[in-house]
């Protein structure tokens, strides 16, 4: 009864969302054109057209589009009284914390603009546009003077915001008792414990074959790997998003990963996507934003210094500059607790008619932002494809890593999950680290915010991101962080300061991700 009403409401919302899309127009065109075919009878028109769409693969594409809509963000609630801000973030104090954090960032950006005398946006003169267009594929060779620019914020600033969160209705006056929480995050969000994690991540168990473990050189490929790759090829041939997502839970073979991820994210690179990318590129050429300098600086500081990703510097510029001009990204703010900053035309401050979002996509990059794109460069070499996959990944997962929200994949929940796992299963280690002033979250936070990009070896990172896509959740990142602490527990018990604890955990490039997660979840 109630479920039926909710189901029909969900269906109505999905239909509304899919109605204006390109897929809808294409399917209508196909349906109209199929009327010329002789096997379409007039008296069974509806069924014949439906079966035509099924056999020609259009039904599958529609299924993939519906699958995407169900996984992206939250559908609007059934009650009319619910305001839009509740959909972004249900808890009032988290909304307030996010709003005040955003005010700080915007203030910092504005003061940078005033101090350096650089406008937030300016039109490029024609000669400069031509020059940039010529250098588009090799922007890395450009060496602008970026010494005056500094990143707007770094993960450690954001950590302070997360740590300072307090639930106003929480009864903290009581004695600590059984509820004592040794960690930094003091909000009582619901996070899973090991038993629930074992249930959710059942495909990672010891008895199931995985890539990252059972594709080791010592194991004969016929035991697991060859069969698994054949299944992967079949999944790709079927072009089914849901099947690809299920498949990805046990890892994606290197040769099939690019196509599988594009299929899971339903990121089809059609001509209009290439056109959209070209339009964004034209936007980059026309206007110069202050945010562009921040992007340049970030790429130079992070990706260019990384042994694995420095070769992709040019791609990173192209993708990130276009990303900051893409107004389609504004859609994700419906389910993101953040709000895009508004900027007013000079002289018309406060007048909403003259307000624009700044930057056009509403996302202000921070120190390390380019590392979200860098691992994807290993999979896609065509800029428009790389761009559309990155945009999908950002609007589904990465935005949660730098905004305050109570979502179970949000950074606050991930931090709490990490601390709870550590306190429950390694209490001696946690206590010792706390005593020496090395709270584990202070070391692990930078890994969580970047989803380990730049800290792990590239193939291991891609195994981790396979699971993120497969389970549609960022929890594996927190589990891995706890597993790393468990792995290096013996060394960590002997350190006596935060600096030496950080030194023990500085180099993660030799770690194998999947065995660590598997042992931590299933063999502890």
């Amino acid at each position, binding site marked *: 009864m*109630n479920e039926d009403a909710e189901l029909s409401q969900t269906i109505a919302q999905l239909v509304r969302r899919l109605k204006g899309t390109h897929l809808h127009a294409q399917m209508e065109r196909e349906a109209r054109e199929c009327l010329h075919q002789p096997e379409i009878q007039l008296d069974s028109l509806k069924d014949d057209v439906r079966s035509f769409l099924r056999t020609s693969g259009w039904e599958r594409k529609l299924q993939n589009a519906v699958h995407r809509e169900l996984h992206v963000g939250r559908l609007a609630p059934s009650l009319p*009284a619910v305001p839009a801000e509740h959909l972004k973030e249900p808890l009032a104090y988290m909304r307030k914390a996010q709003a005040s954090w955003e005010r700080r960032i915007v203030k910092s950006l504005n003061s940078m603009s005033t101090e350096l005398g650089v406008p937030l946006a300016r039109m490029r003169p024609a000669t400069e546009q031509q020059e940039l267009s010529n250098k588009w594929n090799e922007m890395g060779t450009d060496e602008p003077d970026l010494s005056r620019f500094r990143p707007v914020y770094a993960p450690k600033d954001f950590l302070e915001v997360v740590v300072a969160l307090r639930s106003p*209705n929480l009864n903290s006056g009581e004695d600590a008792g059984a509820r004592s929480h040794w960690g930094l995050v003091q909000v009582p969000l*619901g996070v899973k414990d090991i038993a629930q994690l074992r249930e959710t991540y059942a495909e990672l168990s010891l008895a199931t074959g995985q890539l990252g473990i059972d594709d080791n050189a010592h194991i004969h490929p016929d035991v697991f790997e060859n069969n698994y790759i054949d299944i992967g090829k079949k999944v790709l041939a079927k072009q089914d998003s849901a099947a690809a997502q299920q498949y990805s839970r046990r890892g994606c073979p290197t040769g099939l990963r690019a196509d599988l991820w594009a299929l899971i994210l339903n990121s089809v690179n059609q001509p209009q996507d290439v056109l959209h990318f070209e339009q964004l590129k034209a936007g980059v050429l026309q206007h110069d934003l202050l945010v562009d300098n921040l992007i340049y600086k970030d790429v130079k500081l992070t990706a260019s210094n990384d042994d694995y990703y420095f070769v992709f510097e040019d791609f990173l510029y192209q993708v990130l500059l276009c990303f900051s001009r893409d107004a389609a990204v504004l859609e994700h703010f419906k389910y993101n607790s953040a709000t895009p900053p508004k900027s007013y035309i000079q002289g018309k401050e406060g007048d909403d008619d003259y307000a624009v979002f700044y930057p056009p996509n509403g996302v202000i990059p921070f120190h390390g932002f380019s590392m979200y794109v860098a691992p994807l460069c290993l999979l896609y070499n065509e800029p428009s494809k790389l761009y559309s996959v990155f945009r999908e990944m950002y609007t589904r997962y990465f935005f949660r890593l730098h905004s305050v929200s109570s979502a179970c994949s949000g950074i606050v929940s991930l931090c709490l999950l990490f601390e709870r796992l550590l306190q429950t299963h390694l209490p001696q280690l946690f206590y010792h680290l706390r005593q020496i002033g090395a709270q584990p979250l202070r070391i692990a936070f930078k890994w969580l915010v970047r989803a380990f990009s730049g800290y792990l070896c590239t193939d291991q990172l891609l195994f981790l991101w396979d699971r993120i896509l497969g389970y549609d959740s960022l929890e594996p990142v927190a589990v891995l962080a706890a597993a790393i602490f468990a792995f290096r527990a013996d060394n960590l018990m002997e350190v006596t300061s935060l600096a030496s604890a950080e030194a023990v955990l500085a180099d993660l490039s030799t770690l194998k991700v999947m065995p660590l997660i598997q042992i931590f979840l299933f063999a502890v």
Partner: protein
Amino acid sequence: MSADDVTKGVACTLKPPVFLHFGGGDSKTQGCCSGVCVIDVALPPGKTTITFKNFYTALVSVRLQRRSPGQEGAAAKWCTALRDRPLMTNPHTEAGAQDYYSIDRKQMQVEPDGVSSIRLILKQPSSAWLTFSVQDVRIFPRMQPVRKELVFPPQDPLDVASVSCRLQQMWALSQVMQSSQSHAASVGRFDVRTTHARTSKYIFHLLTSP
């Protein structure tokens, strides 16, 4: 009952919540909080769906004071319409703590007709929270179809097959007309397709008019 009542509901007057304490027989010692709170709602007649915003309540029960339809003269009796519906999945954590909920007549164990008063019993067993209540309680009348679907009065059902057969003949006829006309003066600025459409539209009307 205005149109506004149907869409926005009516905010009802809540009596102040009564927190139940136990212990503390004399007025000096305060009993400890039992985690149960009772709110009485003064109910306008004829309403059946309740929506509210939760504020850290874990479970809610609804009791109705009603007069059964057959017994007009008898005193109104209290009966339980909904017992311990969970609002927060885990009373110690924030999930569902500030969400919006609705209770409609289908979820109630008794028919909410002839109700003179509603009592909401809120329970929050966890000691983690300072207080708990519900906010913005609104009552909606019995749901009636607000938007009538536009239904055209049924006309003579068109026999698709026969109409399309006749159309086929008319198309052939118009093709013949067009090929004979092409010898004459050109049609000018008009697109040939639109003239066809207009011709066939007239023919269609001729076919379907009674």
